[in-house]
């Protein structure tokens, strides 16, 4: 019975303490407050994380037509969108950037642009962060 009591106490400790670690991860890496079981849903708005892909050719930089990418690259990109929204900067886009670069031999570099939108608690206004990742051959 002592073993069961200890196991139950440990489980409850995880439920109680994980949200503290989760809050640190949200602040440090921008993980989704609404996900990963820390019960912070409805504590802050959860706007979609937007991801766009651009490619540079000899004639300039344009948005890459995702529909024209091979199906496995599109699948990876869709998966990246989901994981990036949930895991923040813990999910690096390098593998997806390299896959797009390999699928588009005509481009010399691929840029992945991400827009994460939050509500600033001090001013109650929208704050936008737009990190950009560039991968070259």
């Amino acid at each position: 019975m002592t073993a069961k009591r200890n196991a139950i106490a440990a489980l409850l400790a995880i439920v109680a303490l994980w949200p503290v670690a989760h809050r640190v991860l949200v602040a440090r890496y921008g993980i989704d407050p609404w996900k990963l079981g820390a019960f912070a849903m409805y504590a802050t708005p959860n706007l979609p994380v937007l991801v766009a892909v651009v490619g540079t050719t000899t004639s300039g930089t344009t948005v890459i037509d995702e529909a024209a990418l091979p199906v496995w690259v599109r699948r990876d990109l869709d998966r990246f969108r989901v994981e990036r929204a949930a895991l923040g900067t813990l999910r690096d886009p390098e593998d997806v950037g390299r896959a797009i670069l390999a699928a588009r031999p005509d481009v010399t570099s691929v840029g992945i642009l991400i827009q994460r939108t939050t509500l600033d608690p001090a001013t109650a206004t929208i704050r936008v962060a737009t990190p950009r990742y560039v991968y070259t051959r």
Partner: protein
Amino acid sequence: MLALAGDPVDGDTGARERLRWFRRALVAWGVARTVVWTTLDAPLDPSVLAASLALLVVALGLAWVPRLETLASRVALPALLAQLALTFPLTPNHFFLEVWATALLAFADRAGAADALVLAGLRWLTAIVLFVTGCQKLAYGHYRHGDFLAFMVGRGDRFADLFAWVLPADEIARLGSYDAFRGGSGPYRVASVPFVLMSNLVWIAELALPAGVLAARTRTVATVAAMAFVAALQLGAREAGFAFLYLNLLALFAPAPLAKGVAATSLAAFGGIVLAALGILPGSALVRAWHLW
């Protein structure tokens, strides 16, 4: 600490009866939720979903056989863990609550020796989760001035119907005019005192009610208040999944007849949800709109 959530009036038989009905409702919820998942256009592996559904159906059957009922959660737990792996990292929080509760129930044994301990564990889980939601609202800082609810009203999103009625029409129009994707939009802040008061009452209730349900003297009143609070809030959020789970967890603190009534009502509702999801009853659109996944 665990004993604080105990209930000497219940005795061993009382604890077993409470766990029995909670287990039935919890596993039935797992079945209903999984059936809903199979009807959605979610990118979930259908073979894993089907296998986990089969396990959950077996668990539901076991939950209704008193001699085998404690096996139900042990059978359900691997199915839920497979679903957790399948949905990660988009797994909804009410699913984590379902997993934690199932894991706690798995400690119950046929002899009933751990029933009181498991019941205390489930009650602590209930109190901790409600307290954590209040702490998170404080930590993110969007409730003190009502910013989060003002944002939701502006977006016409969940909670808008529940809280917008205290705001003047021009305030609602102002909040709705902001582009939520443009930096500097806002402020999502209103001058309405009743609105800000309601916003603050949310986190205050979430911090105070757990203490109320744990203390034996205030348990019944706090449990009824918490049930009303959670039902109202989850109606506003259109979160049927969290509402069903959490009301059944709160029912573990309630007088036994009320607890059994909550479980029985939930079981009937889950039956309706399954039939609606499968298109046998009308309401499949409603099932999708109420965040059951």
